[in-house]
């Protein structure tokens, strides 16, 4: 039974991985990676790693993939050619990829598989449960745990700094050109002040000033809002 489940999950994982690499549209690549991750979570379950499997589904297939989908939708997942552009890269890239695969196969078949026990150790009943992992995180691996939290915070702040819209570094006319800021609204329109009728809009005020004499009621000096 576990052998059948293993082969099903392994086939799905490998198919998803090949799909990530071979599909032209980045959006479909992301979806293929979701398939791959869920199949990998099934493999983790077969290896008695329940908590890791749950974290895989929740963190990866949930949160990280949503981030990917948003960025692909923002950047625009247009179809792109599969191969690299450069002349030498077009040949050398697949050659190096094949070299990595051949090297790993040689390492596997030569020595590594012979050196491991095939069935695995005898397990106690709480192996891989959240209780087990959590106890380890708070005792033996406390320092990596805390460092991971620090790393997450640094990454979050860094991503916000990287992806924010920079004022001052780029010319402000760029934003007008590309329609990010369509136009300036007139002063006081669309504000609470206009709604409550305390301040009239600029157009109404200009009309009123045209009727009456254009004396002292400057539009900027009557503060309060």
């Amino acid at each position, binding site marked *: 039974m576990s052998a059948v489940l293993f082969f099903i999950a392994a086939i799905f994982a490998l198919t998803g991985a090949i799909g990530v690499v071979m599909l032209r549209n980045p959006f479909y690549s992301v979806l293929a990676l979701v398939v791959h991750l869920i199949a990998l979570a099934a493999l983790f379950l077969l290896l008695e790693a329940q908590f890791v499997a749950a974290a895989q589904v929740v963190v990866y297939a949930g949160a990280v993939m949503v981030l990917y989908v948003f960025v692909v939708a923002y950047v625009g997942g247009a179809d792109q050619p599969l191969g690299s552009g450069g002349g030498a890269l077009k040949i050398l890239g697949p050659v190096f990829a094949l070299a990595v695969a051949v090297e790993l196969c040689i390492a596997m078949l030569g020595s590594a598989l012979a050196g491991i026990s095939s069935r695995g150790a005898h397990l106690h009943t709480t192996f891989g449960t959240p209780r087990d992992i959590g106890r380890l995180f708070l005792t033996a691996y406390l320092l990596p745990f805390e460092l991971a939290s620090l790393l997450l915070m640094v990454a979050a702040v*860094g991503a916000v700094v990287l992806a924010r819209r920079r004022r001052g570094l780029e010319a402000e006319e760029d934003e007008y050109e590309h329609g990010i800021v369509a136009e300036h609204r007139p002063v006081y329109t669309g504000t609470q002040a206009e709604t409550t009728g305390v301040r009239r809009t600029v157009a109404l005020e200009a009309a009123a000033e045209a009727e009456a004499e254009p004396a002292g009621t400057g539009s900027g000096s009557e503060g309060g809002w």
Partner: protein
Amino acid sequence: MDIGWYLVVSALIFSIGAAGVLTRPNPLVILLCLELMLNAANLALVAFSRMWGTPAGQVFALIVMVVAACEVTVGLGLIVAIYRRQMAINVDELNELRG
């Protein structure tokens, strides 16, 4: 199942991911292929953890997941910044640092 089969699957996934990193020009897809390679390493770690019967390998796999999430966040932030600067989303054309 033999633990060796899991390692074979892990090696295949790693090779596929490495091939994607080396051949695809789109940085989004390169990040996805990096995820593939990290997941292959995770699978090997969890398989060895099962082999020895100690959960330390699973702790290592969880830390790898955290690092991968950070890497994805920063990488996607970089891609959004590249897109904002109206530059090509293509690693072959982003060669301004070449001396």
